[in-house]
């Protein structure tokens, strides 16, 4: 008897699970961290001016490079699809090592990517690249923009000095929303 009831309830459970698994076309309730970060990366491009030397031609795309594994899935490609800025389209590229073999205007460094970056950070010095990290201390180590997650909201820090070194002109609007950090002083 008890056994039968158990079977019955197990069945019910499976049915419930199966019911739940049929797609119900309602608004998705989830917003992924990297979907938001992808939107930020696109937005950063709108508020940063690169020197002409950063591109080889006026129609060159703005290339967002990801150092380390791609945490975005398709969300970054989706975010930039069809977008254009001053006649330039966007592209995404995954980079597995430094020094860079091709041009990147934005270099996103994942936490795992820090391991690849640190030994080769010198090769990026004064290159016109907007480096964006997500590791505590990234700005302090000379990165331009660093993401932070505070109470579920994405915040960012900007190292103005590092931006100047990379010949990037960051709009005051972007600066006003950021927390300003400084590079560590060289011993």
């Amino acid at each position: 008897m008890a056994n039968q009831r158990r079977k019955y309830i197990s069945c019910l459970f499976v049915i419930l699970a199966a019911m739940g698994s049929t797609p119900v076309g309602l608004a998705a309730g989830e917003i992924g961290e990297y979907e938001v970060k992808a939107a930020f990366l696109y937005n950063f491009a709108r508020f940063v001016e690169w020197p002409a030397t950063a591109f080889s031609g006026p129609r060159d795309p703005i290339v967002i490079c990801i150092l380390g594994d791609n945490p975005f899935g398709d969300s970054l490609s989706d975010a930039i699809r069809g977008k254009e800025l001053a006649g330039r389209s966007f592209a995404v590229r995954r980079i597995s090592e430094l020094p860079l073999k091709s041009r990147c205007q934005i270099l996103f460094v994942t936490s795992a990517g820090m391991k690849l970056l640190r030994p080769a950070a010198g090769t990026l010095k004064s290159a016109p690249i907007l480096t964006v990290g997500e590791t505590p201390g990234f700005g302090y180590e000379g990165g331009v923009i660093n993401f932070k997650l505070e109470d579920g909201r994405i915040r960012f820090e900007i190292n103005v000095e590092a931006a100047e070194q990379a010949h990037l002109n960051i709009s005051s609007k972007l600066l006003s929303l950021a927390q300003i950090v400084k590079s560590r002083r060289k011993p």
Partner: protein
Amino acid sequence: MVTGPIASNTHRRISFLPHRFRAVALMAGATVAGLAQTNNPSDLTQMNLEDLMNVKVTSVSKREQKLSRTAAAIFVISQEDIRRSGATNIPDLLRMAPGVNVERINANAWAISIRGFNQHYSNKVLVLIDGRSVYSPIFSGVSWDQLDMPLEDIERIEVIRGPGGTIWGANAVNGVISILTKSSKDTQGGMLTAAGGSQLRGLGQIRYGGKAGRDGTFRAFAKIFDVGNSASADGSPADDSWQRGRAGFRFDWEHANRDAVVLEGDLFANEENQTSRNGNIPTPFDILSHTELDAAGGSMLARWTHTLAGGSQTSVQAYYDTYRRTDFGIPATLRLFDLDFQHHVTAGDRHDIVWGLSYRVGRSSFAPGYAIRFSSYSRTDNLFSGFLQDEIRLSDAVSLTVGWKLEHNAYTGLENEPSARIAWNPSSGRHTVWATASRAIRQPAFADASVDSPLSIIPAGPDAVVVLRLFGNPHLKAETVRDFEIGYRSELSKRLSVDTATFISFYRDLLTTEPLPTVVIPGSPLQLFMPSKFDNNARATNYGGEASLNWKATARVRISPGYSYLHANLRLEPSSNGNITTSLAKDFPQHTFQIHSLMNLSSKWDFDQALYYTPRLPNSSIPGHARLDLRLSRRIGEVAEISVVGQNLLRPRSFEYGDANALVGTQTVRSIYGKITWRF
């Protein structure tokens, strides 16, 4: 799905590696709803920066690739999983990790282990809370009833199956359970929780978090918890109700991204009812007696992590832990201080090195004058250890981690715990194959070395009794394991991921009881005194594996089944005339199966289900049992959530474990409770 602050991972900790410096990915991904915004994520790029900064991230997705790449069998229980489990205590949370065997003995005692050797106070799994070990050096094991906190404040629980001695040291033989609480930065504002129901008589909890200066945040909490009786063998109310209260705080300070300080502490008191026999070995002459278990204590931990120029990090941690616990009527006290230093540095572009030194001093004492005696009633033990671990990137796809821990304990002297781990992660990043070889030990505890315990007194005629008595052995060796694992992890698609691990473990010097010569003590009654003592005369070869799937069936439904298998072959050394101790008894199931399903019925309603199945334990009369838990919840705006949870719904009552030595097992009862959480 999760209301309120999500698990932040800006506060990085190492997971399989020491917890301080890096974090693991959240496997399942903490997800949230209750959002003011119901933006379609694809619209995010249309938002201006200010709006974007106000978007609450609801899914801290798989972030560092660390977890998926780690060469170890790790399962992460996220805050989302915790909230939706409906569990009200930590043991029930651990049920959801495949390979962890959780068996309830009575309402306040559990047998919890990983990959076998399960018993009350299992001794082969190390448990940490924010880096503080809660494994008792008095009797080898964890007092699960003493572990508590607002479950909402847990960021995640990392369950590592397999040895972890290289990083964590002794007693991480079969696994490590690491409970990490949220940074106080992520628990700002107030939260009030009240719950009650048929067996959970009451749960009340208040927590408040605020800012302290420019760079600091804090939270403080108080919690009370009251559980009623479950059922005894004949269905009548068992005498196992219990209460506990706890208050604590956590303070976090971060400065210029260079320095981070964590300071946390808590105080607790427990009062529990139990029923026990008068000896460890059941006899027909046993008298069941009511005993009270009381425990009270507190802990304090401080940790400072400093990022040096060049990106290397140092961390200094100190904690003090003390409690007094009266179990089976015998008061025991522990005072423990631990100091630990770690340094994490990258060398060249291939080496990622962590090394550390630590010192621990613990004073354990038992009160004299009770039935269980000891050859010495208190002792102070020092523990020194050092470790070095190097993760070497052999190529883009292959990394090798080698590590070695050297530890000196007061019982067995110098012990070493080396390990080697290799992970192959082809460039697609979707698959990881890993393998490990490691050695770990369990060091003897105070009780193993010096106990003098009456096991049983059995009448053997009109004027004679047999007295069984067990003596500790100060010359015990450490129990050791040599363990080999192979695992595979894959993101088969965006919706489906799989995680499998297999292992074979060779144990030596496992604890046994050896008979000593029988002594006849004349008198009335005549005593046949049959002593025995602890020794290291057993070995075991165990193998098995675990598999889990995580399937995002739709945007609103996540289904995760898990399975574990264990084959154990325990045997006495030919030289032994003794018994394998209860700590080795085959009190673990060969197969376990579970399935969880989390469903978002709408943006306000959640419906969650969990089904567990454990077959009959090999040496037990307890039949196989299934457990079904259901939870239905509704969010009210962003501030409140009401839920109803049903537990053990399949049967009115059932045993999970039965008796544990002298402790009488009780039946879990079908129960229901309601809960309201209000944030302000």
